[in-house]
């Protein structure tokens, strides 16, 4: 497969999305089939590129003084693009049934598939500028999704999301400019691009700039001071929160941070500096802060959103260890968390879709009424908790192994924070399972009399994701070896 397939992979969902909106459809299922076909073909192309694609840089558009939009396939691309291309068709299938209740479906699915193309753009970008370009487009293409219900709070949520993201992008731009001036090239090369002679006098300033860029990209990765937008964006329809606010958008933020740390500034330059401590402290604090907020939250989707905030900081904690093993741990949790979180969001969405209720205390006794949904929710909850045999345990194991191996006393304290937030995750996930399966004696039965499991279009993705969680938990060694090769730069 030559280079042009990358362009096809990115443009197909965008063009397909736009055509969905403007082509006339007699029956909705025609649109569903057409859209799902586009999704699956794009995913196949992406996997074709990953398995056999070209590795040299492919320049598309040239800007001024050697800046350009260009694509390349390297280890990180494979991880992120592979993850996104598996989960996106599933979430779209889930979205079809969920959106039956809502109107304006064509516009929704237009932006939904545009977001897919743009996320692939981020994954395939080969230098900081093209990644920044798609990073901004991702914000613009996801704002209408958050705003879809057009209610008052949806508009306020989308406005807050927009301000946070654009603000973050402004600071990230600063980081990029400094890379342009102080680095040899903007190209992503493992180990960093800063040229030694230019940097000699300005280490401290560059560390400050790294911190700014980290916070800039951190907005999307929901780091503590700038994570308020994620829970409020929970007001969007579930396919949006499930895919975007648990997998695509926030993972793009973390992906950008990995690119910034390992592939642009370079860990040799950053390790051991005061910035590493600041950044690691931020990640650790967010991990605990996210969980403590989630425990108090009774709205199911806001609770899962806060849990996403804390789990993202696990990944960033792995990144801030700044050793190849740290990257392995981070990538491992990136994949495991994506699978588990999308499963729990979909179950929460199914619960809201079937019963129309939104709060945890409305879940009494539903476990026996909606067995598929609540069993998978409990399973993904246990996975998040880190029960051995499921994906969560594997990623926590790798993260902790990296932290212990790095011999940095702060990393040891990081492991403690990891475990405290795992305990808090246990509290708020088990309490959901408890309410569903063992409700206290006096709960009213007729409130949940009518609810049953949703249609196959919702159940299939949920079960597949649960299966992935178990498979990742039990047979993770091939995946972890692949991550080790990525961290070592073989791919």
């Amino acid at each position: 497969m030559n280079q042009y397939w990358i362009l096809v992979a990115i443009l197909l969902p965008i063009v397909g999305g736009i055509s969905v909106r403007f082509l006339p459809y007699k029956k909705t299922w025609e649109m569903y089939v057409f859209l799902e076909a586009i999704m699956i073909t794009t995913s196949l192309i992406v996997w074709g590129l990953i398995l056999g694609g070209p590795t040299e840089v492919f320049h598309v558009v040239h800007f001024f003084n050697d800046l350009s939009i260009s694509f390349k396939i390297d280890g990180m691309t494979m991880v992120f693009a592979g993850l996104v291309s598996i989960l996106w068709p599933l979430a779209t299938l889930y979205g079809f049934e969920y959106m039956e209740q809502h109107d304006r479906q064509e516009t929704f699915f237009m932006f939904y598939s545009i977001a897919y193309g743009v996320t692939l753009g981020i994954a395939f970008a080969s230098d900081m500028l093209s990644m920044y370009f798609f990073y901004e487009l991702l914000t613009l293409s996801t704002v209408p999704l958050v705003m879809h219900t057009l209610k008052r709070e949806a508009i306020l949520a989308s406005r807050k999301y927009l301000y946070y993201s654009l603000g973050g992008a402004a600071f990230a731009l600063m980081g990029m400019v400094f890379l342009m001036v102080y680095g040899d090239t903007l190209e992503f090369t493992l180990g960093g691009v800063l040229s030694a002679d230019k940097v000699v006098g300005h280490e401290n300033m560059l560390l400050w700039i790294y911190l700014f860029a980290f916070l800039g990209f951190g907005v999307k990765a929901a780091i503590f001071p700038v994570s308020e937008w994620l829970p409020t964006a929970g007001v969007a329809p579930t396919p949006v929160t499930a895919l975007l606010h648990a997998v695509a958008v926030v993972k793009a933020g973390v992906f950008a941070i990995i690119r910034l740390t390992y592939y642009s500034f370079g860990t040799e330059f950053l390790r051991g500096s005061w910035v590493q401590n600041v950044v690691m402290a931020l990640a650790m604090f967010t991990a605990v802060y996210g969980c403590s907020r989630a425990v108090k939250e009774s709205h199911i989707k806001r609770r899962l959103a806060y849990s996403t905030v804390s789990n993202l900081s696990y990944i960033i904690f792995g990144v801030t260890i700044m050793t190849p093993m740290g990257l392995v741990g981070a990538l491992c949790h990136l994949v495991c968390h994506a699978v588990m979180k999308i499963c729990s969001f979909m179950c929460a969405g199914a619960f809201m879709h079937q019963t129309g209720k939104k709060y945890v205390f409305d879940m009494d006794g539903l476990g026996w009424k909606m067995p598929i949904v609540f069993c998978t929710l409990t399973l993904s909850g246990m996975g998040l908790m880190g029960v051995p045999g499921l994906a969560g345990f594997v990623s926590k194991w790798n993260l902790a192994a990296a932290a212990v191996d790095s011999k940095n006393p702060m990393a040891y304290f990081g492991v403690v924070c990891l475990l405290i937030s795992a305990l808090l995750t246990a509290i708020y996930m088990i309490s959901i399972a408890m309410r569903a399966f063992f409700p206290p004696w006096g709960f009213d039965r007729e409130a949940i009399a009518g609810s049953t499991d949703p249609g196959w279009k919702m159940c299939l993705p949920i079960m597949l994701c649960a299966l992935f969680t178990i498979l990742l938990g039990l047979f993770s060694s091939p995946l972890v070896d692949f991550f080790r090769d990525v961290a070592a730069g073989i791919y």
Partner: protein
Amino acid sequence: MAFVQNVPFFSIMISMFAGIVSSILPAKAARRLNIAATVVIGAMSAWLLVFMLQSDIGYYTYMMGHFPAPWGNEIRAGVLEALMALVFCIVMVLSLMGGLHKLDEEVEPSKENLYYILVDLLLGSLLALIYTNDIFTAYVFVEINTLAACGLIAIRQIGRTFEAAVRYMIMSLLGSGLLLMGICMLYDMTGHLLMSNMKESIAVIMEEGTYAVPMLVTIGLIVVGLAIKSALFPFHAWLPDAYGYSTVSSAAMLSSLVSKGYIFLLVKIFYRVIGLEYIADSKVLNIIFWFAICGMIFGSMNAIWEKDIRRMIAFSSVAQIGYIYMGFGLGTEAGITASVFHMLMHSATKSLLFISAIGLTDASGYKRDFFEVTGAGYRNKIAGAGFLVGSVSMVGVPMFAGFVSKLLFAEAAVADASWRMFPAIIVLAISTILNAVYFMKTVLRIYTPMPVEEEQAKGYVCIPWKQNKVYAVVIVLFIVLNVVLGCNSKPIIMMIEEGLRNFM
């Protein structure tokens, strides 16, 4: 002397001539003449630009009527001047055509041909400012420019425009008074009026250091004078009313062309008259830098608090002019390239914003209040698209012109690594966020649909783009201009750098 080298003289003469002739023509004929004249001048400037790029002579001077210096006048043209002339003509034509449908409503038929006189004069004075090599002619054309601009504001003849015109007039007179005094002192010290001769004598003066204090005062006078006229931060009180209430095409022309003309004159004075290195070490640049920084912040803050959509865009002009002066404040070659590129970007984007804003307010029962505009994006689709592209470019999303200029500013700030870098970088980021706040707030507002029954109740009507084809074509052309400036900005930046290099 190839024939093409007469283009600067011809273009000024054509615009002046068109102005005089249209005083006796009826309104429709005057309009056609004006547009024809501008298009011809644009074509000639493009021809000159191509010629200048191919021939390797950096620049050439053109003596009017072969009279030497003290008596005759001189024009000097280079790559940069040709490029600026071309862009100004394009923006002039599009702004005029964009506001045509409003002209018929707001200006009495009898007075319409006067409007075109003013437009021609404005174009003439701008071209003169670009090309002239003599400082007193520059002053004269500055005055013509002020009068034409004041006329453009007052043409709408409602209470607000008069008050705005008077305020504009007062501030401009202050500015030009200071400028004239500066020019006289320059003449007093150097004894010449031609910029090239002035430069040698100033270089001599600077070496001996005899007139150190008076030179500082002169530079101060000229810079403050031109700053007042181009509405830099502390002296921008007149701008919101002037742009907010005048008719659309004049607002577009004023915001994108008039202030740029004065800034271009300032660039010429920096390079040709006083020399960049003397300017750099005089304290004036720091003053400009700090005024620009405050301008960027407070301009955007005012824009956020503003309720009227057109005054909001006017305040955003204050911020953008702050960007341009910040480029000068850096005092490096890269800084000035960024400012010049930003001038081009701002003129294209700002007039697009003004024209699409008027389309939105038309679709909302001519009410300019921010909350009335809800859902206007659906009612007037083409105006909505224009506004979206304009604000996205202003906010600095890649693939649009705004992003490239922000990148150039940031790179210029980082490259010189002096104490100015940190404030510049921080303020650049903060003002991007502030820009994002008020532009995106409006974009979200125009794209949240108003419930249908409320629309009927208020009597808002959907305006299909077919209803006003000229308007739609203008918006599309502006969008294309914006995207072109954004996408292949490489050649344009090369031209600016080359022009600035042989601008000495």
